[in-house]
């Protein structure tokens, strides 16, 4: 319970601490989630309403983004379309992360034949252009959301695998991993506590980018007719329909493409932000949590241990014959200050 609180406080500190950029991201995320889960909260219009009198109308007070070829409100369609897009993005990236990360990290850490084979698969999968792969699968299995998720999840897993593997390989050489091995802890423990947490970083940066790719890919595939079928609404299907009428009603196409661009852009930006905050140079500031009151007083935030240090030595510790030990204990400023 306390752990969750710590995480929450950390997150709030992060959000507050940051510039306007992060707030925008958080706001957009909330908006997106609401649109996906409870679209009716954001618009009163029915996205499927057919209105023969108001076809391809431009933006107006009743239809902020205009109407489509059936008279339905474009904005409403976009909002309702969020659900499937988000489902696609989160689903495919999520599967890729859950499957690809452990596989990749293990392959990188273990090495050997298994690693070689798995990596070859990953490379080949990566060589396969998304469009072609999608075309193939859709031609065989038909177009549906599930097919799309499957296609994307498959390709994304290969990417996550590759990144996780590279990280694990690099980590394997680090001394603290060697030290962990030498200390005789169980391999599962080593993986769980040392390897995986340290390998996560780049994968966490990758995932939002994969989600962005998912959204763009969906748009592209729907445009080609390989995406979900009506009456399901996704941004891609909206965009696809709008393309036919772009001369009559440019706002229609512009709006459709804009939402794809903005969402994908925000997700990629989120990836950048995560990448920055994981930068080891930033870690110095972030990891000192709670933040020390004064920058040069290391013991300022923790008064309790300071009194301990001044107390009598515990009876079981060896006699401190060497005078060199005492100055270290007594003066926090001696070796403190911390930065190397």
């Amino acid at each position, binding site marked *: 319970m306390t752990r969750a609180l710590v995480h929450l406080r950390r997150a709030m500190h992060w959000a507050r601490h940051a510039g306007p950029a992060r707030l925008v991201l958080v706001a957009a995320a909330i908006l997106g989630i609401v649109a996906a889960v409870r679209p009716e909260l954001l618009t009163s219009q029915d996205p499927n309403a057919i209105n023969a009198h108001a076809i391809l109308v431009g933006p107006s007070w009743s239809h902020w983004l205009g109407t489509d070829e059936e008279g339905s409100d474009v904005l409403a369609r976009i909002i309702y379309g969020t659900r499937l897009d988000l489902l696609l993005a989160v689903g495919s990236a999520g599967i890729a992360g859950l499957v690809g990360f452990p596989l990749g990290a293990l392959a990188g850490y273990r090495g050997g034949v298994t690693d070689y084979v798995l990596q070859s698969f990953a490379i080949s999968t990566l060589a396969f*252009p998304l469009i*072609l792969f999608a075309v193939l699968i859709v031609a065989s299995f038909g177009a549906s959301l599930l097919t799309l998720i499957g296609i994307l999840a498959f390709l994304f897993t290969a990417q996550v695998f590759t990144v996780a593997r590279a990280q694990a390989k690099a980590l394997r050489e680090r001394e603290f991993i060697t030290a962990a091995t030498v200390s005789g802890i169980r391999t599962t423990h080593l993986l769980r506590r040392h390897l995986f947490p340290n390998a996560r970083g780049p994968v966490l940066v990758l995932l939002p980018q994969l989600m962005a790719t998912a959204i763009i890919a969906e748009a*592209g595939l729907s445009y080609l007719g390989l995406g979900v079928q009506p009456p399901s609404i996704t941004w891609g299907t909206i965009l696809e329909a709008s393309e036919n009428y772009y*001369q009559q009603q440019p706002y229609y196409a512009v709006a459709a493409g804009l939402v794809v661009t903005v969402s994908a*852009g925000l997700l990629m930006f989120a990836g*950048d932000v995560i990448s920055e905050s994981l930068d080891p140079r930033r870690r110095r500031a972030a990891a000192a949590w709670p933040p020390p009151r004064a920058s040069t007083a290391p013991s300022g935030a923790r008064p309790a241990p300071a009194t301990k240090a001044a107390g009598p030595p515990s009876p079981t510790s060896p006699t401190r014959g060497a005078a060199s030990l005492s100055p270290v204990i007594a003066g926090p400023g001696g070796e403190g200050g911390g930065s190397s």
Partner: protein
Amino acid sequence: MARGLLVVWWVSALVFLALRLTPGNPALLLLGPEARRPGVAHQLVLLERQLGLGRPIPVQYWLWLKPLLEGKFGNSDLSGRPVVSLIGGAAPPTLWLIGLSVLLSVPIAIGLGVVAARFRSSVLDRGVRFVSTLGLAVPPFWLGLLLLLGLAVDAAVLPANGYVSPLTNFGGFITHMVMPVTTLTLYLVAVLTRFVYSEVTESLAADYVRTARAMGLSEMKVVFWNAARNALIPMVSILAASLGPLVGGAVLVEQVFGLGGLGELLLNSVVDRDYAVVQGIVIFLTIGIIVLQGLADVLYRRLDPRVR
């Protein structure tokens, strides 16, 4: 080398699996709409035996693979023409599109990236990153649409549609290619510039550049020479990695501008269930990409002084 072969094998296996895992009768699929006609039943049976349906999977795989290895891609069911000639006919616009885009985007990206790195500032930093992210986030075909809206519709300067072979009418070729190539180039430039920028920035910080500066060479020279040269080398592998998305983008852009290349052939074949053609195009493009990536790998090793 061995890995290259493994990759090719895996790709072929993927294509094969996609076909076999289809619910329904693969022979029916391959024969396409023709199969539903009465009197074609014996052809169906023949094909089924050819495909080895009902026999173990590895056998089926081999039966499928063998003719391909011999270069026999079969015939389109719709037109009856050999798949290979269909592909050959449809390839030029696609290849021109991709080729020209790459040719244009590489120097532009290097130039932009190096210049941006030269005048490095936090504003520029963010700006470059923002623009390149934008470039990546924009669906290429939507961008094409925007271009159409902006330039073609009103101005009627550049045709919105169609493709003309450079051999028949060079001027027409150019005007028809301008917008599609621009669209794809913008996308590529976005991808590459970001990379060049970060590479150059890194190498500018490297020691040997400092040494060169200390030796008194004029700054511009130092920056451009060393940085550009260093950015070029990994560019090869970045390009290789972007081949996949590039092909995908090309297919989409083709559609928007009605260039009628491989993309259109592919999509029509999917709709028509002309499976032999679909298979042929997919294999052709994928193998092409893998081969190019292999070449890029070799080139990269040759160029990189560290690996030598």
